[in-house]
Every structure is written in structure tokens, then in C-alpha cells.
């Protein structure tokens, strides 16, 4: 159990980040670079943090003992966070998704920044300090895996099936060539809004659980930095199959731990081990620059599986 108490936090974080990767991937299925995920993630977290500290109080008042917060409340918050994100995404989606390419990315950056400034200033979000003491349904951080893992599997399955369904095909057609897709009867706006909303719902739900997991929630949770991290998951992991962002989220979240382990090796020059400890974002940044040169579609591509499948077939024949 020692492993789980040491790495429990990391493992669950990896699952969360993989889902955030998926939440950016879904709009990207229609060819839209949306950096809005952290905005909805922040929103979901605030909903959970506010509800669990003001509405879902124990009978007779007071505070929840650690580990006693009912999971059913977490689930209710998660659903509400998903719904709220869906509504907000619809609201901003219809007007802004007429925008192509770069303009949409800019609009979503603006959205994330506006959410951040609002949460820094509003009473209900605890201003700059944020919301402390979000009650815990579990004593061990690793136990959050019972919430995070099913949600990751469900969302991965959702996207896997989506890619093979009528709607998913329309998404891909839009990514390949929006005008041609429209000329073939695919409504660009409704499909793009749908993808945007689905991604928002996932990000909002992840935020709700994360608020409990992190125990506290503040304006630093949903920032432009997070946008870039999540983007890195997709670019490095792969942008053409749902496995890409999942792998990217898992790997890049584990990377600092790996670097820490390497930094601990005896005999490294001080500056190098310092770099490995503090240089996580430098390495992320450089990976984002270099990866597209060697892996234009990310580490995992759909062709990877096809080639594999062909090889197995040949081997069998």
C-alpha cells in the first residue's frame, strides 16, 4: 500500500489530466482549436466547492469529518457541473463557432481569461483566496480513483463510439473540409456547437471532482497555462485518435515525477538536477515545438493501428 500512498495523488491526477485532454480533443474532432477547457474546468470546480461548503452540509451544521462527505453529493455536483458547463457552452458556442481557426482559439482564450478575472473578483468564488476546505469523501487521495477511473473509461468509450457513429463522422468531415462537408449536408454550426458542448461537459465534470480532490479551489485552477498544458497532451499524444490525448495526459502528468527520479541520480551536476526538478515547463514547451516535426499527428495515430492490423493479417496468412 506504500506505493499507493506515495503515488496515489499522482495516479489520480494523471486520470484527471487525461480527461482534460479528451475535453480538448472532442472539439478538435470537428477541426476547432478550442482552448476553453480550463474555463469549464474552473466553473465545474467552483460549483462543487460552493455547493459542498454551503449547501451540502452535515445534519446539525458544522463541518464534514474527513472521509465522510457522501459520494452521492459529489455525483450530484458532477452532474450539475456538467449541466452548467453545457448551458454556458451553448450560450457562447453558437455565436463564437461561426469563427474559423485562429479566431475561435482567440475567443476561447478570452473566455478563460474572463472566467479567471471574474473568479478573482466575485464574493461567491472567494476572490483571490478561493474556496478552502472542500470536504473529502475519501481519506486517501488514491481512493478518488473510484470516481476518476470510471469517468475516464466512460468518456473514452463515449469518444471511441462517437468516432464510429453518424455524428462523429460528420465531425471528422468538418475537420477534413468544412465547405465540402456543408455541401454534403452536414450542418457546420450545430455539429461544431455539439462538439464544443460535449468537451465543455467533460471539463466541467472533471473540475467538480478535482475540487474535492485538491481540497481547495481558486482562480489559478483555470488559466491560460492550463490551456497550454492540455493542448500539449493532445499535440504530443496525438490529435487524430482519442487515445492520443489520453496517453498525452497520462504521460505528461507523470513526467515531472520521472524527472524527479532522474534528478535524484547520484553524481549529476547540480544545475542539471535543478533543471530536471524545476524545468518541467521548459521541457513541455520544447516538446510542443519539437514533437510536431517528428510526429506531425502526435505519438499515436490511427494508422499506427491499421499498420499493426495489416501486419498481423500478413503474419496469419
Amino acid at each position: 500500500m506504500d506505493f499507493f500512498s506515495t503515488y496515489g495523488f499522482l495516479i489520480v491526477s494523471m486520470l484527471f489530466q487525461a480527461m482534460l485532454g479528451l475535453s480538448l480533443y472532442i472539439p478538435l474532432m470537428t477541426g476547432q482549436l478550442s482552448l476553453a477547457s480550463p474555463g469549464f474546468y474552473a466553473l465545474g470546480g467552483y460549483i462543487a466547492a460552493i455547493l459542498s461548503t454551503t449547501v451540502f452540509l452535515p445534519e446539525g451544521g458544522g463541518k464534514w469529518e474527513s472521509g465522510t462527505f457522501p459520494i452521492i453529493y459529489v455525483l450530484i455536483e458532477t452532474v450539475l457541473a456538467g449541466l452548467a458547463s453545457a448551458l454556458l457552452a451553448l450560450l457562447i458556442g453558437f455565436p463564437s463557432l461561426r469563427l474559423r481557426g485562429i479566431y475561435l482559439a482567440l475567443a476561447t482564450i478570452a473566455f478563460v481569461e474572463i472566467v479567471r478575472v471574474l473568479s478573482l473578483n466575485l464574493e461567491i468564488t472567494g476572490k483571490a483566496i478561493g474556496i478552502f476546505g472542500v470536504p473529502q469523501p475519501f481519506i486517501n487521495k488514491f481512493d478518488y480513483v473510484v470516481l476518476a477511473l470510471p469517468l475516464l473509461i466512460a468518456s473514452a468509450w463515449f469518444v471511441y463510439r462517437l468516432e464510429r457513429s453518424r455524428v462523429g463522422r460528420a465531425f471528422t468531415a468538418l475537420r477534413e473540409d468544412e465547405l465540402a462537408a456543408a455541401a454534403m449536408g452536414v450542418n457546420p454550426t450545430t455539429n461544431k456547437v455539439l462538439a464544443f458542448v460535449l468537451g465543455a461537459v467533460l471539463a466541467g465534470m472533471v473540475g467538480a471532482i478535482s475540487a474535492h480532490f485538491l481540497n481547495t479551489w481558486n482562480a489559478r485552477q483555470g488559466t491560460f497555462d492550463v490551456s497550454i498544458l492540455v493542448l500539449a497532451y493532445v499535440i504530443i499524444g496525438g490529435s487524430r485518435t482519442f487515445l492520443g490525448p489520453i496517453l498525452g495526459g497520462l504521460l505528461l502528468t507523470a513526467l515531472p515525477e520521472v524527472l524527479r527520479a532522474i534528478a535524484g541520480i547520484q553524481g549529476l551536476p547540480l544545475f542539471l538536477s535543478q533543471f530536471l526538478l524545476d524545468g518541467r515547463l521548459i521541457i513541455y514547451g520544447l516538446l510542443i515545438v519539437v514533437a510536431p516535426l517528428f510526429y506531425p499527428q502526435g505519438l499515436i495515430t490511427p494508422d499506427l493501428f491499421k499498420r499493426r492490423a495489416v501486419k498481423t493479417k500478413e503474419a496469419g496468412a
Partner: protein
Amino acid sequence: MSIFESRGATRRFGGLVAVDSVSFAVEQGEIFGLIGPNGAGKTTMFNLITALTPPTSGQLLFQGQNIVGKQPHQIAAMGIARTFQNIRLFGNLSALENVKVAQHTHTHANVFAGILGTPGAREEARRVEAKARELLRLVGLGESADEKAKNFSYGDQRRLEIARALALEPKLLLLDEPGAGMNPNEKGILSDLIRQIRDQFNLTIILIEHHVPLVMGLCDRIAVLNFGQLIALGKPAEVQSDPAVIDAYLGD
């Protein structure tokens, strides 16, 4: 009533008038040729009909209804399908998937039905698949249904575009230079295919084509555009001997 009619359709780009009050009508079941020198406004005319470019002025009537102001996907759903001069397939999708996409308006499985695989959605998916394969066989691509569209030869891509357009179950089919890049033999096969689909699917076809023998042999009537203006309209033989047409083609 004509199935399609253009009444004074005009499109300006800045100072350039790409289509200049062009009026013509196409009858049900016709194969209607649209010819003219490069830059005459033929493709712009197609873009106006399919709403990829809005007309500056004029009316476009499909089955008696003005379609100006509609969105491209609405035009497609009404029954107007097209191919593109500079092929616009979904390159990373297989041929089969390309054709499936175009059945979008005739299918209804929503996102959740598709993901959960409800009986209705599965039945629909089977129908879509069967129809897509049938259309691919029709254009002679039945064997390479699972190949990515971008890996196809030029001629095969053009035929795949036709299969994709047919999947929309259109009433009016717009073919933009379907024979471009094909050799004479392939062009002959293409002619037969166009006639065959017209009869089989009860289509009306408007065709842009440079290759004069193909147009003359295939079309019931021909409209000639030059610098955005309609300069001749009639049966192939009449148009061919029209001095204005000869002038447009040989004048420069």
C-alpha cells in the same frame, strides 16, 4: 415548371463581375452543359447554386422555390449535390466513410443513440453501409472501399466524388469538370456512367466540362458563359455553330 432556374444571378468580387445577370432554366431529366473559357464564371455559378458564395443579386429557383439565402447544408438537404473542380474529398477518411458522410441528411441517429448503439441506430448504420458500398460499386470503386481517399488516383477521386454526391440522393446533380485529368478511354466510361446515373436515379445534371467532344456527345442542351455573361444557349449543334461562341473560344 423547370426543376432549376437562374433569374439574373449576379456575383461581384470587388470590381470584377464573375457572374453577370445570368438567366437560364434546366428541365427535369436534362443533362445540361455549362461551358466557357477559363474564368468565365462557371464554377462561381455552381458556388452560387450551392450557396458556398451568396449572389450579389438575382434569384435562384429550385423546384419553383427561391433558394437564395439558404445555407449550404440546407441546399444539400433540399436535393442539390455537387462535385468540386479541385477535388474536395475528406482525404483522411476511407472511400466508404466519404460516401457515408453524405448520407447525413437522410439519417437521424443522434449522438447518444449512435454511442449507445440502439437497435434503431444499428439498423440505420447497416443501411448506410450497404448503400455506401452499392454506390462505390456503381462508380467502379467497390474493391477499394476501405482505402483512404487521399491515396486514390486522380480519376478515381473524381469518381469517388460522384459516388459521394449521389449518396445525398439528389434531384439535381452538379458536376464540376468530372472528366478533368482522365484519358479518352476513361472519359468514354465516364460519359456512360453519367447517363446511367441520370436514368437510374431520375436525376437532372448540370455539367461543367472543358472537353468539347464529351460535352457535345453527352448534353441535351448547353449554356455558354464568357466573362460572366451568358452568350449562347441551345442544343449542342446550335451552340457549336454560334458565331459568338466561336469568337469567345478563338477570339483570344
